[in-house]
């Protein structure tokens, strides 16, 4: 059975929570006691019927404010697939949460209210999703019941969104009319939408091809932990434990250990202490090398032919996630998966306007800004661009003092065109 991870995005009140509630409810993922608790809650809050949105609005603050403020995860399984839903908030001030949700998703459901069509938020969420590398989109036109299940209304919205998608270079959009509240076309096709010939939302989700973990990408592996039993039976054993980030590793591969640049051979691949001839992303493995070389956490082991050039200078897009602004000259920590190094912001190159997708001038990044920066790191990183690799093209920035996560980083360029200069 496959696994599909998707995010749901839309503006407040477009019906996101109701939709997720509906998917869980109609696919039988909601247990009786949770339903009973909901009914109880609804009775005391005097609404009447079961409010499906309550299935996803978890935290107390949200209950008090009646809005979704953080990223919530929901799970359901059908006979065909297992799904992980990341529900991300609609408010402008929570772009960072949306970025967080999109970073782990294979697909985005963009929800719009049929009465309003494409609004500012629709654009913004689509842009953030595209930025984070999501390739597949579902335009779910919700509350179609309130527009008399009108085909014309649906087609107008579809046409508007097609223009947005074209501008952003999105190639795969499935357009699906639904009523989350009444369940039309969410799980089962609806007699209220006789003009719609496509799959229901769930049927689409069950059949859309899943990203095959980028196994066609160049092979990448970073060392997480060195296993050295130093026991009587295994006095000299040295295994490099980590996850295959992308691509395929084979026993006997000629490999390079980066950033040191040492050449050696993959003596063995172990999975749960069994030797394997081949391993693929995202398997967790232990690699052993023929030569006794110095390898530690943060090092990258890659097939010789596909090796990236380690670099100390990066151009990257950041989503800035904290109140205090970022400016040129700031020092912080880069965490590139298992590699961690200090870095300085050499320049803020510009800012992406997330309404128009246009580049603007900028000298600082404020909360929720998407900016382009140039970074110089203390240690070289074996990185790729985000375009090339959604894993090794990504990093986070940390505050040196507090350890707080400051930004999501997407590498645009690893070798800069401008001449190098020392700082």
């Amino acid at each position, binding site marked *: 059975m496959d*696994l599909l991870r998707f995010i749901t995005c839309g503006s407040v009140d477009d019906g996101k929570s109701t939709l997720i509630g509906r998917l869980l409810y109609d696919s039988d993922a909601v247990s009786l006691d949770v339903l009973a*608790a909901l009914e109880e809650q609804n009775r005391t809050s005097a609404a009447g019927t079961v409010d499906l949105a309550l299935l996803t609005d978890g*935290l107390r603050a949200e209950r008090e404010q009646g809005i979704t403020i953080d990223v919530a995860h929901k799970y359901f399984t059908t006979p065909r697939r297992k799904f992980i839903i990341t529900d991300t908030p609609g408010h402008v001030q929570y772009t960072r949460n949306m970025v967080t949700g999109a970073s782990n998703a294979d697909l985005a459901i963009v929800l719009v209210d049929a009465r309003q069509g494409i609004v500012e938020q629709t654009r913004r969420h689509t842009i953030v999703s595209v930025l984070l590398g999501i390739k597949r989109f579902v335009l779910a036109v919700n509350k179609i019941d309130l527009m008399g299940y009108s085909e014309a209304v649906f087609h107008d919205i579809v046409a508007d969104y097609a223009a947005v998608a074209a501008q952003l270079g999105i190639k795969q959009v499935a357009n699906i009319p639904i009523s989350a509240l009444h369940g039309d076309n969410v799980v089962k096709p609806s007699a209220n939408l006789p003009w719609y010939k496509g799959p229901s939302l769930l049927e689409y989700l069950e059949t859309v091809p899943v990203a095959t973990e980028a196994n066609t990408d160049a092979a990448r592996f970073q060392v997480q932990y060195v*296993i050295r039993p130093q026991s009587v039976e295994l006095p000299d054993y040295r295994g490099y*434990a980590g996850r295959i980030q992308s691509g395929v590793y084979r026993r006997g591969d000629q490999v390079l250990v980066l950033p040191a640049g040492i050449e050696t051979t993959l003596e063995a691949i172990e999975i749960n202490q069994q030797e394997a001839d081949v391993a693929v992303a995202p398997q967790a493995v232990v690699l052993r090398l023929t030569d006794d070389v110095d390898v530690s956490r943060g090092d990258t082991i890659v097939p010789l032919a596909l090796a990236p050039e380690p670099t100390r200078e990066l151009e990257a897009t950041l989503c800035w996630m904290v109140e205090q602004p970022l400016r040129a000259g700031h020092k912080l920590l880069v965490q590139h998966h298992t590699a961690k190094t200090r870095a300085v912001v050499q320049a803020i190159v510009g800012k992406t306007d997330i309404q128009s997708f246009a580049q603007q001038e900028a000298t600082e990044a404020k909360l929720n800004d998407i900016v382009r920066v140039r970074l110089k790191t203390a240690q070289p990183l074996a990185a790729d661009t985000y375009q090339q690799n959604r894993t090794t093209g*990504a990093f986070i920035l940390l505050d040196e003092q507090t350890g707080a996560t400051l930004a999501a980083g997407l590498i645009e360029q690893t070798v800069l065109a401008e001449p190098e200069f020392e700082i």
Partner: protein
Amino acid sequence: MPTLPRIDYLDRLEAEAIHILREVAGQFQRPALLFSGGKDSIALVRLAQKAFRPGKFPFPLVHIDTGHNFPEVLQFRDQLAAELGEQLIVRRVEDTIKQRGLREPGGKFPSRNALQTYTLLDTIEEFGFDACIGGARRDEEKARAKERIFSVRDEFGQWDPRRQRPELWNIYNGQIQPGENVRVFPISNWTELDVWNYIQRENILLPSIYFAHERRCVVLPSGQLLAVTEHLTLDASDELTTRQVRFRTVGDATCTAAVESDAHTLEAIIEDILQAKVSERGATRLDDKISETGMEDRKRNGYF
């Protein structure tokens, strides 16, 4: 050329959990694995074997013992630790109550779940643990659905849902300041059914109380069944019965309800779960019912 292995959803969940466990080993000085003897922590132990063998675990197993145990579970715990050859640390709620002069919860069903928090915080301080691995899952409860995989706690073990660090891609940020520590949940993305499927696939042994057996129970007014143990004070009005039951979690015996079942095998349990639409916590933990936000309140206060 060998064909490429096919990775299904359980392989993916397993790989994610192993990756997380190794991040703990790579990022922290003194981690610990919180081990309850329940199926989720037993699954964690299997994942740790896959993550670290042929080496030793880079952390001890730590059991915060409520004292209200099923004897089968303790026996299982000790045997497992011995077979693994790993260190087991046990700290007792009983001792915390004495040391801190706390009041035992009174009443008919004196759950010590709330007091576990104190013992856990004392244990973290005693050993200087900077990361505690737990078997919590996001599908267990609404508040958990929002918790990060690396969840930073302040000195008092408190969780502030508004100040959570964004968790991007599969990059886990374990950078903390002195006094802070991190709770890590490697099987966050697993559901109850996933855990059972994994246990079956991996032939993992479980304490016998997970399987159907005859047991003397009290019938609660709600209709739920509670095992008769020395920790309950029964009176004449209590309705007692002997039924075929199994347990779905192995927490504090005074507040872990039994479910009627004739499932003697893993296959039968999985079949039961597919059919019974009563989620784990609702069916079995009585003390979550105290308030609608039961879990959230306890998390803020440093519960696992």
